């Protein structure tokens, strides 16, 4: 494939205004699927099943089978709509989107068309420097996911060149909400960053609602990015491309940037942009043409006759609204204030996705700075080596227990890290790990003094320096003592005692 010509980014922005639009699909983590009672693979307990085991006649579209709407999925969708500031339709309908594809069991997808469950909202996103940008939301609608095709025998894993394809219908019927933005104007040079922050905010919202695991690497959250350019001063929107399945925050940022540069290069040469879907290539950081897409794409939508309209009562909507968690942006502002972190510290925490964990730990009685230290330090490190999420490894309560042992002078930081490791390894509670590993600090001065005297005797030059008032020289002795005590001593107490003994 010939490499596309790219225009310098700043030059592109000088000539053209980027207009963005995003379609984000969120897999809901209900126990069962959107229209059947098959286990939903997007529910935590149902991960990793063998292909075609999480299916019923409905998911396979067997003749005679009929869909039934999952009530919990409707509730989740309403909550999401409310969190996006949308109005909730008094009556919304499912519609059939008709097209032939082997991953689509019925050869139509049950979706929503002219009557989505949620419409007309907006969401505030925060850019890295704290600027708040408002993204207008057109609609959020419910639909079912398709199955998964694996193309075998080709070099690229794509359908072109493949010898045959395998279909796994486990994913068929997983409940989805598709969130569609209105055209986003005014992002200008920060368009890539706006894209990243938008997707990140949607992820935060669905996580705080507890309606999806929202793990992009698992496909729980999938983003299609629309980009068009219009010459400065022109009102009419340019032709857009839709880059499909840009499935990490960083990729969203890169893909938007790439499309701006690519389209600008074409337009500057007097060329025209083809309205099409494009594939994102993570490895090369480029996009390539998919299929042409025109507004005349004909899915022959019509109201799904097998299902009744969804008509949530005002009471239900009020109840779901009352149960909404604090909006992520509001919550972040509150926590920043409460915790007293610097902007930089707070951004680190936010970007590592540890806000909830630290919040819970603080609620369990730990000072914010300590909580931050444990989560972004030792726990994040272990999570990184294990390739796991920090929150999966240890609870806020356990962290609080460790910290209280430190506060009580039973552990120092170094020992505390070992205790955390023990808890993570499943050796029991913090107290049990202390007991089993014998990690308590030596609180009796007797053994300490013996070790100090020995160390001072071994380093007479240091002793001289201390006696001359160069107290920082004590460090060498403290180190030796700590080593002799195998770290199980309170360093502050050792220091006190070293100074005392040196003068003795």
């Amino acid at each position, binding site marked *: 494939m010939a490499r596309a010509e790219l225009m310098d980014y700043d030059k592109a922005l000088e000539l053209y205004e980027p207009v963005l639009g995003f379609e984000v699909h969120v897999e809901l983590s209900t126990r069962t699927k959107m229209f059947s009672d098959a286990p939903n693979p997007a529910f935590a307990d149902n991960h990793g099943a063998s292909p075609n085991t999480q299916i019923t006649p409905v998911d396979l579209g067997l003749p*005679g089978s*009929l869909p039934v709407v999952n009530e919990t999925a409707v509730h989740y969708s309403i909550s999401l709509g409310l969190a996006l500031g949308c109005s909730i339709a008094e009556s919304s309908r499912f519609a059939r989107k008709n097209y032939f594809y082997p991953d689509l069991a019925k050869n139509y997808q049950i979706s929503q068309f002219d009557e989505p469950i949620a419409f007309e909202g907006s969401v505030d996103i925060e850019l890295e420097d704290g600027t708040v940008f408002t993204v207008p939301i057109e609609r959020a609608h419910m639909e079912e996911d398709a199955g998964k095709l694996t193309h075998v025998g080709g070099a690229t894993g794509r359908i072109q060149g493949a010898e045959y394809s395998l*279909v796994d219908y486990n994913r068929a019927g997983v409940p989805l909400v598709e969130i569609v933005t209105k055209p986003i104007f005014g992002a200008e040079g920060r368009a890539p960053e706006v894209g990243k922050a938008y997707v990140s905010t949607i992820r935060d919202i669905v996580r705080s609602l507890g309606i999806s695991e929202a793990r992009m690497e698992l496909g729980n959250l999938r983003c299609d990015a629309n980009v068009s350019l219009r010459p400065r001063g022109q009102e009419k929107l340019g032709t857009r491309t839709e880059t499909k399945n840009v499935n990490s925050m960083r990729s969203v940022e890169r893909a938007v940037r790439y499309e701006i540069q690519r389209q600008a290069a074409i337009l500057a040469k007097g060329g025209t942009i083809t309205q099409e879907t494009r594939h994102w290539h993570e490895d090369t950081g480029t996009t390539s043409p998919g299929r042409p897409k025109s507004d005349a794409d004909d899915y022959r*939508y019509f109201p799904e006759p097998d299902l009744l309209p969804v008509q949530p009562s005002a009471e239900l909507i009020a109840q779901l609204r009352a149960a909404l968690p604090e909006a992520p942006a509001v919550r972040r502002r509150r926590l920043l204030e409460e915790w007293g972190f610097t902007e930089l510290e707070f951004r680190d925490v936010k970007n590592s996705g540890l806000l909830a964990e630290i919040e819970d730990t603080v609620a369990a009685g730990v000072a914010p700075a300590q909580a931050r230290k444990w989560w972004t330090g030792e726990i994040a490190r272990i999570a990184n080596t294990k390739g796991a999420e920090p929150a999966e490894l240890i609870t806020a309560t356990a962290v609080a227990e460790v910290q209280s042992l430190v506060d009580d002078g039973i552990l120092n930081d170094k020992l505390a890290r070992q205790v955390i490791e023990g808890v993570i390894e499943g050796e029991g509670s913090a107290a049990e790990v202390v007991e089993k590993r014998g990690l308590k600090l030596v609180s009796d001065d007797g053994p300490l003094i013996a070790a100090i005297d020995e160390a001072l005797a071994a380093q007479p030059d240091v002793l001289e320096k201390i006696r001359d008032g160069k107290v920082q020289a004590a460090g060498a002795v403290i180190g030796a003592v700590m080593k002799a005590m195998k770290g199980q001593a309170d360093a502050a107490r050792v220091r006190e005692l070293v100074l005392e003994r040196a003068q003795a």
Partner: protein
Amino acid sequence: MSELITATAADLAAKLAAGEVSSAEVTRAHLDRIAAVEPSVNSYLHVSEQAIATAEAIDARRAAGEQLPTLAGVPVAIKDVLCTVDMPSTAGSRILEGWVPPYDATPVRKLRENGLVPLGKTNMDEFAMGSSTEYSAYGPTRNPWDLERIPGGSGGGSAAAVAAFEAPLALGSDTGGSIRQPAAVTGSVGVKPTYGGVSRYGAIALASSLDQVGPVTRTVLDAALLHDVIGGHDPRDSTSLTDVWPSFEQAARRGAQEGSLKGLKVGVVKELAGGEGFQPGVLARFRESLELLEQNGAEIVEVAAPNFEYAISAYYLILPAEASSNLAKFDSVRFGLRVTPQGGGTVEQVMAATREQGFGPEVKRRIILGTYALSAGYYDAYYGSAQKVRTLIQQDFSAAFEKVDVLVSPSAPTTAFKFGEKTADPLSMYLNDLTTIPANLAGVPGISLPAGLADEDGLPVGIQFMAPARADERLYHVGAALEALLVDRWGGPLLHRAPQL
């Protein structure tokens, strides 16, 4: 003919309960009859190999003193549109040849739970598209009254099986008349329940918003008994009503009592009771029935339903539109026929080859029609307008039912026509459903029962009653009343006058 095959289901049920006969005997008698007449009638696509065993199991339970449901031990035929775990379910199509579903349709499950004995699967127009069974991929069913004529459709197999005494009871499905029109032209009884009255789960869909499963029998009481078994809410069908239904058996028994018609207001639908296409013999029997009703205390009034004249046009947009989508799943990927083009092909080519070979001409015609009607730019003009007509027809019904208790019309404009008479002209075939389609568009229930034989051809004529949605009870009441009066006048059931096969 053995009394075991000419008896009504109600009589068989009584004899079984009294221990006068065993289910195995009754079932064997029907299997014998099937073996004898199938070569000429061809009602069945598949005859169950387990029928005798099922019957014996019921007999054993009865012998053990178990209290069994009313129809336990009575044989029943099942239209091939309904999924059955123990028999192929093809909907009359090549594309599903040999397909055995992994589940029972809800009405079938209810049959089994009530101890009925499935005899087999009955023939039908492919995917229930047709009014003659000529579009079955497995050859047409013949009308027991005249083997040169159609038994109606799409449920010609169920109606002919009942009329030819190959089953006392059968299940059908009615999208635009597929239960009532075959009942009319074979001299049997057929009921299309209120939309949502019987679960559609496991009924291979033609047009989801119109399809309804219902009974095909020889008497109104038998239809009521069967309806009582198959009806009721099913959580697997979102369009199934949650109503608690009254006993239709009781409604039929009350209707059959003398004087039951007093004060009943019967509306003759002007638009469905005459005009072009109506056979004189059909209209003559229809008027006789009205007179009989009137003589027995019913009040006959004429009502107008001005929008009914658009019903066929609307129906032939809505049905193909929904069918084009419902039939998209037949693509060879997960089940059914697979045709691979010579030398192999892409999945798209395999799908196309399969559908080309697996679907018959009428199915293709309607898929094309429906695809067109739903296309962008045409949706509003076709599907959208058709839905508006549907609303108008519903309003016509509502207005009429403010004045009368039930509506009445001939069940079909003609008696059974000859094979090949209408296949060359699809529109003339479609017009045969003129009288039955409005009930489907409005979701209201309808019954067809025999009204006699037409003078010009000696073939059965049907009369149709329609009631407001959810008032199926009224159909059994008035149907049983008229049936009693007619049988009395004829000196016996009409079907006993059918020629010996």
